[in-house]
């Protein structure tokens, strides 16, 4: 019997045939007596088999035994993953390796892109570099144009990136350019040496900047923001009577700026200073001499009276981008007049709300939260602070972060504004209600 006939026989016996197929098979049976006998015997056998008493099932205690074992298995499966991790050194090693890799990928590139800019941000550094270069590499040949320097991606170290930036800023001395012609390894060593030499100075510069900028509510994250902060500072100083400082300030304003900065520092530190720096024009018969201002600033002017290298604590030479950023930040400058400060804070809060709403529309809760948090820090001490706190509380509540929502709501509740107080109370009440509902839900259905 072929496989096809096998299938037909089985299909017929188990009733898995179409009526037409069944009809055809019955006709075949009528024609073939042997097939008919086989079918009859098998139908009879299956009928007998099905009429037999049903056999006994498994023992009754087996179910409870299986359930107990299953429970035990589930419990053992729910063993803490940390225990499992500790039990497998290989796995633990893999985990720590992956963690280290993540740190390396995320953190280090940021450090590399930020650090060099800080390393060579100041005039002092540049001048010390020149001094260093004059010792190690005498100026023997005319340097190539800075724009023509080409380095492969592999050889390009962070310090080289910074160097390029400096070149593009056109503050590269001949000695420095000679340095650039040296091998990358030698440059790297020199950079390290310079870095270690001026690490302490950088710290003091950062500190002084943060002291100046902090009261203005401008957060210093990196050099870029510090540049902007310095620019903001210039603007705010100009608002206070000092002549406006722009990307290329005139000679006459320089002393005012530096003096203002110095006096600002001296006011904050309680130390002396504030004298205008001596200025030496580049291109004059005498060699450009390094001059020190009241404390740390150094400036050098070209014959036209333009700043060649920026003051350490003064405004950075602005590119178009930084100019636009700075102009955008004009509004972040704070007036000392309380009424003006309140107005400024309200505007900040409104802007933050608009921005946060945009982020929330796009589903980016984290960004919205960040905007609120930063704004809240900026407007601390104003009425807007309570308003922003309330928005934060509402945001955190919507995200189910009850502890944070409660904290922000309680802060907002300290406002004198009745409506803010009421809304803050409402948030706290809702948090309480939700928490009590959650507490009343049983932990497991088991």
């Amino acid at each position, binding site marked *: 019997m072929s496989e096809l006939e096998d299938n037909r026989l089985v299909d017929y016996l188990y009733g898995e045939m179409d009526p037409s197929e069944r009809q055809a098979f019955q006709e075949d049976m009528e024609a073939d007596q042997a097939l008919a006998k*086989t079918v009859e015997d098998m139908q009879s056998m*299956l*009928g007998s088999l099905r009429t037999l008493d049903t056999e006994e*099932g*498994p023992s009754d205690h*087996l179910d409870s*035994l*299986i359930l107990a074992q299953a429970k035990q298995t589930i419990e053992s499966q729910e063993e803490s993953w940390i225990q499992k991790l500790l039990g497998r050194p290989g796995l633990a090693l893999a985990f720590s390796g992956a963690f280290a890799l993540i740190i390396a990928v995320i953190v280090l590139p940021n450090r590399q892109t930020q650090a060099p800019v800080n390393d060579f941000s100041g005039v002092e550094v540049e001048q010390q570099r020149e001094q260093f270069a004059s010792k190690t590499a005498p100026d023997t040949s005319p340097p190539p144009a800075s724009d023509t320097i080409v380095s492969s991606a592999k050889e390009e170290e962070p310090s080289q990136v910074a160097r390029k930036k400096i070149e593009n800023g056109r503050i590269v001395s001949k000695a420095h350019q000679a340095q650039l012609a040296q091998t990358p390894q030698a440059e790297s060593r020199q950079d390290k040496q310079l870095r270690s030499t001026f690490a302490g100075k950088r710290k003091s510069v950062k500190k002084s900047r943060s002291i100046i900028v902090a009261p203005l509510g401008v957060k210093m994250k990196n050099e870029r923001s510090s540049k902007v902060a310095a620019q903001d500072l210039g603007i705010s100083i100009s608002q206070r009577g000092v002549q406006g400082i722009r990307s290329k300030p005139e000679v006459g304003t320089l002393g005012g700026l530096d003096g203002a900065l110095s006096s600002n520092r001296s006011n904050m530190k309680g130390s002396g200073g504030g004298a205008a720096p001596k200025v030496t024009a580049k291109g004059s018969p005498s060699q450009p001499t390094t001059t020190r201002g009241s404390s740390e600033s150094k400036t050098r002017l070209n014959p036209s009276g333009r700043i060649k290298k920026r003051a350490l604590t003064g405004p950075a030479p602005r590119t178009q981008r930084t100019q636009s950023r700075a102009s955008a930040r004009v509004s972040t400058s704070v007036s000392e007049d309380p009424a003006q400060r309140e107005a400024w804070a309200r505007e900040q809060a409104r802007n933050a709300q608009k921005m946060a709403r945009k982020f929330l529309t796009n589903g980016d809760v984290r960004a919205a939260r960040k905007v609120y948090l930063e704004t809240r820090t900026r407007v601390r001490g104003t009425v807007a602070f309570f308003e922003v706190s309330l928005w934060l509380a509402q945001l955190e509540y919507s995200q189910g972060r009850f502890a944070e929502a409660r904290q922000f709501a309680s802060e907002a509740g300290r406002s004198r504004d009745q409506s803010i107080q009421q809304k803050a109370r409402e948030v706290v009440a809702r948090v309480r209600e939700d928490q009590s509902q959650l507490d009343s839900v049983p932990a497991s259905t088991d």
Partner: protein
Amino acid sequence: MTKTSSERDGRDQEDAVWMMEFQRGNSYSFEKLLRRHRSGVFSFCLKMLGDKTAAEDALQEVFLRVVKSAPKWKKQAKVRTWIYTIARNHCIDALRKATHRKTASLDQTLAKQETEGVTLSDRIADQKEALPDRGTANVRLRAVLLEAIESLSEEQREVFVMREYSGMPFKEIASIVGVSENTVKSRMRYALEHMRNHLAKAGIAPEGKDRNRE
């Protein structure tokens, strides 16, 4: 024993729901699954292994494997098919480990706690003599049928048991066994033929009549 396809679909969907609940940690759903499938799986294991104790052990083992593998179960797979695949694999392993049980021949001595030196054929003969009255044919037929099932090859037996005792469609059996539906039907055809011959040899007519008595 046989269920309509709509009934089967409904049960399959219910199984899937229970399984998903169990995956979420609801152990009561596992209990439901156990109660639904225990008899079928036990019957399958009993027919495959030919021993009640071994079948009970197999039942325990199968459902413990279900618990352990539950996180891996996906909704695309039918729960019943999945459980029977586990049961089949376990039975095959058990049969390979204890080949002496599988190849119990008519001449093999029965267990010591039973009658020493008595063979399976003697027992069947005894049953024939000891059960002359009404209902004895039923008992005798059962013994012969069990013997016939035991004498089937492993491949034929699993197909026969799954179809005849668990009421599974051939398509599902094919997915459990891992062969085509046609191959399953072919194996079924040979299994039925083998059993018919075995009954004839034992002197039992296909319709259950005892030819020896006649």
